[in-house]
């Protein structure tokens, strides 16, 4: 009895830390990407997967076509206006835990294409964990990005990764609408503007980790 009493005081913290470590280690060592190759960066992503720079030695063994079976979405390529709602929908269909790597200059900030057709940065649509510059980035850069993501995963906590409520996550997106995550707008909106925006825009409820990550 005395032992359990003593352990119980220290047990939760100890266990959480060790459980975190084990779970994060398992997650980072088997990151399965979702195939989201859009343009030229997709070919460099295919180069990263092929024999010369082998991504599967980092755990990214298979590229799952279905987002339901994927952990990380590597947005490789330029995101056009027509594709943006599709991107958001695929991101919503991925179950927790999920991460996003924005590969290439076009996904990070619009790249060479500063015009009517390209979304200037995929972080206007989904929250991004790792940005990879380059046009296209070399395969070694993508491998480095995966390693940075693995380091980031090791620092997370299990408590942050809770799934969104199923009914909210099934809410389909109205085409032509664009959700904006906090902290990515160039100018700071006043609170009144933010409140007004939230009211007028339908938005899938962000999960807790999104709010935490995009600051």
């Amino acid at each position, binding site marked *: 009895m005395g032992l359990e009493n003593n352990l119980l005081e220290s047990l939760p913290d100890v266990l959480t830390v060790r459980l975190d470590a084990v779970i994060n280690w398992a997650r980072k060592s088997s990151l399965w990407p979702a195939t989201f190759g*859009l*343009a*030229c960066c997709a*070919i460099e992503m295919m*180069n990263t997967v092929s024999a010369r720079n082998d991504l599967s030695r980092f755990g990214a063994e298979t590229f799952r076509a279905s987002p339901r079976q994927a952990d990380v979405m590597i947005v490789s390529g*330029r995101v056009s206006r*027509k*594709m943006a709602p599709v991107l958001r929908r695929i991101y919503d269909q991925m179950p927790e835990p999920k991460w996003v790597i924005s590969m290439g200059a076009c996904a990070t900030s619009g790249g060479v294409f500063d015009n009517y057709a390209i979304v200037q940065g995929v972080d206007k649509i989904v929250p991004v964990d790792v940005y990879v510059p380059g046009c*296209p980035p070399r395969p070694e850069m993508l491998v480095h990005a995966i390693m940075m993501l693995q380091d980031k995963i090791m620092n997370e906590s299990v408590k942050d990764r809770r799934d969104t409520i199923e009914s909210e996550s099934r809410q389909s997106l109205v085409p032509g609408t664009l959700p904006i995550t906090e902290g990515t707008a160039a100018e700071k909106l006043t609170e009144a503007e933010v409140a007004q925006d939230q009211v007028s825009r339908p938005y899938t409820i962000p999960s807790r980790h999104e709010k935490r990550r995009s600051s």
Partner: protein
Amino acid sequence: MNTAVENISASYEAADQPLESQMTLSMGPQHPSTHGVLRLELKLDGELVVKAIPDIGYLHTGMEKLFEYKKYQQGIVITDRMDYLNPLGNNLAYVMAAEKLLQIEIPERAQIIRVLMCELQRIASHMVWLGTSALDLGAMSVFFFCFRQREKILNLIEAASGGRMTPSYFRIGGLMMDLPAGFDNRVRQFMEDFPDALDTFETLATGNTIWQSRTKGVGYISKEDAISWGLTGPCLRGSGVGLDLRRHNPYTGYETYDFEIPVETDGDVWARFRVRMRELYESHKIVRQALERLKPGPVKSDAPKVVLPDRDDMRKHMDSLIHHFLIVAEGFNVPEGEVYMPIEASKGELGVYMRSNGGPKPDRVHFRGPSFVNLSALPVMSEGEMIADVVAVIGSLDIVLGEIDR
């Protein structure tokens, strides 16, 4: 209780009847086998495709509008991103259209190097085609072999220009800079190892009975339909028309090279596959011939108002410095007029319609992408086939969405 039994038997009767209506399946923009963000609306009768409607535009980048806001030299960078498997081909088409408007002569060494790099790029593009088509049909190991060869070519292109996939190596009036020392030895070494790789592909793909049964008789298009739908390149040569712009509308000295034009008459996926495989042998021949002809010489033409001077020249001579400054800061004025410059890219006829109004920026640049036109014939090829065959047909068309959507 009687009504419950009646309900159950009624539902069994309904299940016995075949499906009356057709199903519409959206082979959506995110799909592992559509080679990019292509959406196909398939109206299906069971597994049979009744109607296939491609829906494109998911990668529309507004490049044609961007060209109007950039000087001619700056536009070369954008052309790389169009057909991203054949960037040197895009560069060549754009640069040659501008040269046609400016009417400047290209030195011989630059022309030989252009042919050499374009043929290497054609081999690299066909490697991706073969790898991804095989991946779609389930033959995964071909993918890895093909990308192994492609890595070698990308190393060569990177040695010459600095970029693996977006080289921007050609300039209006010649090349960006000369080839590095020892480049021709590296190409020779690659060319010596390449026939073994080709034998591997023949064993893995051509001699494979599963491959043959999945591709023979699938996706047929007749000769008249192919011409009417505007198909060009291997898709047209697979239907019996021996048209190759390198022979029939030659450019950069292709008329002096000795190569054959592979033609097959079956018009199905197998025929297009055989045409592309034979083209690999022909490209090999052309690269060998180009290597023999390389002689030292200038790689930029003698047009100081258009072509950037060499760095040494620029540092030592005042007029070169002034020309450099003017070309970079203000651009050069291109005479008024319009041209259409078609080349034989790896996918078909890549045509550039360039129109100038006398200023440093083009008035209108339109790229006639071969994949755009080839994809429009997909409904003809895939109606009456099963869904899995549609995947084979898309693979045989060799589409690149960057070129389709521009």
